[in-house]
């Protein structure tokens, strides 16, 4: 009996090693271990043995049965794993093909800079105001202390629609329009499009500015320095050197031109800063009492500062551009870069 058992086991293992599919393994399993299987048949023969022999043979058969069962299952598991691996192998894709998505557009670099500036001032509590681009001479010049026949008008070459109507040359008229309607305290920025009769590599007849002003009791030139220093540090980095130098604008006094250390050469002098090491970034000053009188504020009660920032200039510095006209050609290959 034990000899037959041994033979049967080695036959089964031999056949199992030749099996190449899970089906074949299951068939073998049924043939040997099924209810009508060959190993099961041996168990049925136990009845003809003495109780002692029966016990011994029974144990032997069960041991073989268990080890065969294990072998069959192992083989089946191995075959199954191999099959899944093959299937996954077949499902492999070329992950280096480009991804599929809707390519988002971009905002114009001028808008991006403008929004960055708006955000910085919004954080300082400045409201946003806007005004017309086709403007009255009164708001663009007169009320800003620039009477007709004043040579300072030469600083801004103007497009005219009629004697009294023009394309605003700066966003400063919004200052007057806001102050006419509201009383201090005021903290306002006015972003917008402005126009000057000028066209070359650093000038376009249309460009953008952000005007800003603050009017309250006790506002000082020192505060102007504080706010603009905060602004320039936010925009260009905390370590940017800044200098304030005297300048002239008809609607502010004292007036200042604000420079930052050249971002291209770091101050040693280059083409962008014309060798000076400094780059002019904005104009500012304390609002003149004359301007306050136009809007019926008492200059003894209120003081304020105003500033104007050219957006294109900042965009050009930020992105290292040397021809401002690129900004208005709207070449999509250019606009995609920002």
């Amino acid at each position: 009996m034990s000899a037959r058992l041994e033979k049967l086991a080695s036959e089964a293992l031999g056949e199992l090693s030749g099996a190449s599919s899970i089906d074949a393994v299951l068939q073998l399993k049924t043939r040997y271990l099924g209810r009508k299987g060959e190993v099961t048949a041996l168990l049925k023969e136990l009845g003809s043995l003495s109780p002692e022999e029966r016990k011994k043979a029974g144990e032997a058969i069960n041991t073989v049965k268990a080890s065969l069962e294990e072998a069959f299952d192992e083989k089946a598991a191995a075959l199954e794993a191999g099959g899944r691996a093959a299937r996954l192998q077949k499902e492999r894709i070329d992950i280096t093909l480009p991804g599929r998505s809707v390519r988002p557009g971009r905002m114009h670099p001028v808008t991006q800079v403008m929004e960055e500036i708006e955000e910085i001032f919004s954080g300082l509590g400045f409201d946003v105001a806007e005004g017309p681009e086709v403007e009255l001479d009164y708001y663009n010049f007169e009320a800003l202390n620039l009477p007709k026949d004043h040579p300072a008008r030469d600083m801004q070459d103007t497009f005219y629609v009629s004697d009294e109507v023009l394309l605003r040359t700066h966003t400063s008229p919004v200052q007057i329009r806001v102050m006419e309607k509201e009383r201090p305290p005021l903290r306002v920025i006015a972003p917008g499009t402005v126009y000057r009769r000028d066209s070359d590599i650093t000038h376009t007849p249309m460009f953008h500015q952000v005007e800003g002003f603050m009017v309250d009791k006790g506002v000082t030139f020192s505060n102007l320095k504080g706010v603009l220093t905060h602004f320039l540090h936010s925009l260009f980095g905390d370590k940017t050197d800044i200098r304030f130098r005297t300048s002239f604008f008809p609607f502010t006094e004292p007036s200042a031109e604000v420079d930052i250390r050249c971002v291209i050469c770091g101050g040693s002098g280059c083409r962008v800063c014309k060798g000076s090491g400094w780059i002019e970034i904005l104009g500012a000053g304390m609002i003149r009492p004359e301007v306050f009188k136009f809007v019926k504020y008492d200059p003894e009660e209120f003081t304020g500062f105003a500033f104007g920032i050219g957006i294109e200039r900042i965009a050009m510095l930020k992105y290292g551009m040397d021809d401002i006209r690129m900004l208005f050609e709207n070449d999509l290959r250019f606009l995609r870069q920002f």
Partner: protein
Amino acid sequence: MLFSYNWLKEYFEGVCSPSELAERFTMTGTEIESVTKTGANFTGVVTAQVVTIDKHPNADKLSFCKVNTGKEEFSIVCGAKNMKPGDKVALALIGAELPGDFKIKRSKIRGVESEGMMCSEVELGLKDTSEGILILPPDTPLGVDYSSFVGSDFMFEAGVTPNRGDLLSIKGMAREAAAITGAVFHDKDFPVDEGEANVAGFASVEIAAGAHCRRYAAKVVEGVTIGPSPEDIRQRLEAHGIRSINNVVDVTNLVLLETGQPMHAFDLARLKGKKIIVRQAVPGEKIETIDGKERALDEAMMVIADAERPVAIAGVMGGKDTEVTEATTTVLLESAWFDPSSVRRTSKKLGLSSDSSFRFERGVDMEGVEKALEMAAHLINKLAGGWVARGAIDIYPVKQHVNPIEFRVKRAEDLIGAQVEEAGILEIFRKLRIIAKKSGHGVFSATPPSYRVDLKNETDLVEEVARIFGYNNIPTTLPVARLIPGNPGRLSAIRKQVKTLLTATGFMEVINYSFVSKETFSVTGPEGKKGVALINPLTEEQSVMRDSLLPSLLDNLKFNLARKTEEVRIFEFAPVFLAGGKLPQEKWKASGLLFGQRFEPGWSFPKDWVDFFDAKGVVEKLLEKLGVERAEFAPVEHPLLHPGKAAALKVGGKAAGVLGELHPDFWDRYGLRKPAYLFELDVDSLMDVFGKTKKYRQLPRFPESARDIAFVIDEGTPFGELLRTVQKIDTKLIDKVELFDVYYGGNIPQGRRSLAIRVTYRSMERTLTAQEVEDIHSRVVRELTDRFKAEIRS
């Protein structure tokens, strides 16, 4: 303005180096744009004398010279013709280095050896043009390094702001330099050796009523000899951008440069009646100015006239007929003060600007008139000889009175935000020659010098204090203010939303000029419309303010297609301008253009071309984002759009924009071979509904029941109409109506189309019974068949 450092130094003791001076000027309000070293920029050039000049044996145009330096004789081949034996010249020897990296080497020119070069001023870098070689004065010593004759200087280029007319002169710059550096300023004296004859015997001056002239002074010099000015004066003028004319005219220009007082010299013999009358021109009068142009005058212009006619345009330019020429023997020198606005108006009207008008417009020192006149007489006497008539005519009816300004130390400190203190302020005033008298506690009565015409009030003085104190010495402090966040305003808020959504949908933002050509303006019709046109455009291409953004977007499309960018989705957010009213109406528009494939061309997208519904989809998404709940689209006629593929948008019953396919008539204009789609939305109309607070709606608690219907219907029946009709059958029980198929052709007859819709029925209050659903569904079907003549397919 250009000025020479050496000339400036004639007015000082102890001024700092050119670069330090430039820095001080820049920081205190006069930006120095450049400092250029001038003068000798060469080595190895010595003075020498031409001994002989012979013809070059092999070249007609060249000569062969012997040139002696006093120690040695050299053979020189030369191309110039302007020298003769005995002339003193500047000789560059072998090894000399000339500007532009030009080294002189031993060389053979057409077979003849040359041992150096006789130089022209151009070759020495002294001038931009010259004729022939430089001939030196006969008394020049020989064998001396020529660079020692040339000397060196620094030319400053200053950006003088329009308020500082007082800086438009050497003297003015010197006064300023003294104030900002602490150097000591010395004025110059010009003693005049006057003759016996009194000036009154030579000429008379009258200022007529109404003339904008507050002072007119004149001196006469008789017996002058007109000729060229000495070299140093010519060079000085030329270095400052003024061409040398003759000794008398050069003196007037020299005085203008040095003192800032414009001067004019008349040939007294040509003044009719020996009279000067300052008056307004009479309409119809004309004058030929010294530039040879005839100018028509009118009563707004001030002129200098003699007994009969205008002889100069006051403060702008003199007349040709009375100018100083070689024949002149007696000159009348004018030194006057003309009203800035009057000079500016005249100059603008004539389109004629001069060094003189530029200074008068910015304010000339009324008190400097006489001194300038003396300087001119002194120099003319020196350069042109003659006799200066005794005394001066000086018509100065109302002497200028500079009003003292009340200056409060506290006000200054409050504006500046720094402790400058009384002593500091007084020291600054002293440097600026502002006379300050204490008039109360912390209050001064301050009188600026007469030339500082820009200092009129307390704030002007505060700026003076601040700039001399130094902006960089003022502390940097943040203001104290209420802690209130900024309010972006509605336009800024909607703009941000529109831009964010459109860029997220794949659109690139463009920014175009607001002005277009008349032709582009006319594209959007109607014919003959009135636009907002510029009086003085830079070019015709930029002459009218646009009334639509669409033509600009189409130009952008054309531009990009020409550069092989064939997928174009762009938008612009900007105002358009409509004529009418004192100011034109400005309407903000959000406009876009789609062209190219629906999906980005790639390896795995279907290659479909965009169509109307892509554009409409973008508009719908945008409206949804802005919070528009109901939008209506209706067919519309628009000059730019395909008549069968154009829609007008209404929001809240108001027109809010258009969208559609570009009219095929425009394909050629923009170089298209496939359709482009456009939309233009009216931001103001959207603003009314934008930003409303959203209200929560309860989620449905009862089940829905959906039924599909497919039917065939006339092609001309708009789906939108059908949709509204079905929705209205029962607004409570019909939850949704969705279109899920549109089909033409096949077994569908010509002129008809097949539509398939899914209607979802639901009540918010209970579960609908099968019978209820059946009832309402049959009403829907009936409506379709009865009203729209639909043929139900399933």
